[in-house]
């Protein structure tokens, strides 16, 4: 059966994000990540945050919300800490794993983040 999407959709897959990745990587060594990519990440994180707040299935919901907030803050930095971003995504995945649709959404945003701000 199809799972609820919580209105979260950054595209069907990682393909578009990866297609933008080469440009993002070229930018990474010079200036801050492409603003549009960062805004996409922040927008999707906001949707995930809202979904987490309303889903009892998420483990340690308040901590999951803190992870999302930390991620949004970090990706906005001029020089994002990719290790911190990775660690936050790994933690967040662990918390939302009981809710499959949310886990899928987090994985998609993580993939987008890796392409926009660079892999850790």
């Amino acid at each position, binding site marked *: 059966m199809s799972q609820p999407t919580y209105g979260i959709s950054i595209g069907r*897959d*990682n393909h578009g994000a*990866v297609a933008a990745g080469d440009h993002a990587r070229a930018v990474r060594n010079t200036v801050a990540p492409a603003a549009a990519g960062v805004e996409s990440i922040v927008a999707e994180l906001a949707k995930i945050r809202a979904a987490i707040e309303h889903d009892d299935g998420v483990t340690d919901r308040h901590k999951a919300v803190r992870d999302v907030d930390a991620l949004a803050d970090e990706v906005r930095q001029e020089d994002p800490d990719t290790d911190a971003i990775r660690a936050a995504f*790994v933690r967040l995945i662990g918390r939302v794993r009981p809710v*499959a649709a949310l*886990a899928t959404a987090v994985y998609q945003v993580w*993939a987008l983040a*890796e*392409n926009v701000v660079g*892999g850790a």
Partner: protein
Amino acid sequence: MDDRLIEARELYHAAVFGGADDGLDVADRALDGLEADTTLARGRIRHARHLAARAAGEQPGEDPTEIALFERALELYESLGDTRGAAEAQFLVGCYHQVVRGDMDTTEPMFARARDLAAEAGDDLTRSYALRHLAFTAQHAGRADEARAALAESTDLRRSLGFTAGVAANLVAEAYLAAETGAGDPSALLDQAATLAATSGAHAVAGWVSEARLAIG
């Protein structure tokens, strides 16, 4: 003929001649499942061609059709709620980016998701593949302990499945990691890999062992 095609044909007849159009959604789902399997299989064949070309010393370029096939299969499996299929397709999407595109930096979420989906589906083979490739991403990022743990978990799964050629392949990867980090005995690992490759008829893996001996010294 595949059972799902037969089912779809019967449902078509039931709808057209019997007026039973309530089965058409079932037919669609049956065909989606068939399409997903076929699409994934076709993607695999393209992937195998890519690997064969590389093994022959060529430098094949990226193949947009291959990734499109894997992504389409993933989309279909997800829409069907087929977690096992989604795990496999997600793994192959990651594999395309890591192996074909040579992108070692951004594939962790793809393989991590494949690992989790495979675990959910109870598909230890796909989980072993995802873990193996997660190990490569971790090794590339300098997280040697994580790489070692992921490879060990993958190898344990493969041993329990009796997937000897896969165990041999993992031992080659472990040998490279051991040589890189100074932890472990690369030569002993390659000896084990060679033995397993020989006993399982994994000639390609035997070739990797020889390459590794030359590279590691």
